[in-house]
């Protein structure tokens, strides 16, 4: 399925993501890493204050699409793979991998690279490569 190339919207949306990361760092002193914030809500080792801040950030994320709906009258356009088995495996790998490797697209890919962290640069190149290979295999070797 083709999708439209949207350089300006993507750039603008990306800058909003960047602004959010700077805002969270400026006010709370925390990295806007979604996997870290999410897993910290449930981790027993988290102190109450960190848990609260993490939960509120995630609540903000959850509110974005409903607010978009109220303002524009439509849910954001999307197509989501619907195979339950595929999405279960994908979810498990994403959750496990992000927490095991200390970060995901936001924590390593945006915040880490912005700090010039070698760990994050290596992690980002690694998960991008793994994702490119995965899509090549599923779309061109198996599904092609």
């Amino acid at each position, binding site marked *: 399925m083709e999708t439209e190339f949207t350089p300006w919207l993507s750039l603008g949306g990306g800058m909003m993501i960047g602004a959010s990361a700077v805002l969270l760092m400026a006010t709370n002193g925390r990295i806007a890493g979604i996997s870290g914030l999410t897993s910290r809500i449930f981790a027993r080792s988290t102190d109450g204050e960190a848990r609260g801040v993490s939960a509120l950030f995630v609540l903000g994320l959850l509110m974005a699409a409903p607010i978009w709906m109220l303002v524009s009258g439509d849910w954001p356009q999307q197509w989501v793979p619907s195979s339950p088995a595929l999405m279960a495996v994908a979810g*498990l790998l994403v959750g496990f991998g992000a927490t095991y490797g200390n970060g995901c697209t936001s924590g390593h890919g945006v915040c880490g690279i912005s700090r010039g962290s070698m760990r994050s640069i290596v992690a980002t190149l690694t998960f991008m490569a793994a994702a490119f290979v995965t899509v090549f295999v599923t779309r061109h070797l198996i599904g092609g």
Partner: protein
Amino acid sequence: MKQIFALLSGLVFGLGLIVSGMADPAKVLNFLDVFGTWDPSLAFVMGGAIAVTAPGFALLTRRRSRPFFDSQFRIPTRTDLDPRLLTGAVLFGIGWGLGGFCPGPALTALPIATTGALIFVPFMLGGMWLARHTPDLSLPIRKGAPQ
């Protein structure tokens, strides 16, 4: 005050994901499909984000010794490349390539209640729980890096 800004940050992040197209797995999977229906848009998402975050972080940490409503900047200090980092990144990348969701977009898309997101998110949370309870198998070859 910090709580209000945490909520606001999350909201802006989510809206950014929607505006940029990153909350749509179709766009993510097409970004990753260089030899097929390639859509390079997501390179602009990452570029736009880093273009704001890199100077923003640098300015903040240079001008201030602490955040506005908290006592300290909590910035990771580790520099070692451990097997855990790489194993996690590979597994994460495979999952991202299969479902087209990473954690932020999956949570943002959850209220839209597609079957895919409703299945993905609980399994993602389960995966996070598992990772936190998996003993570090690479411990013997690591030299005292703090967890």
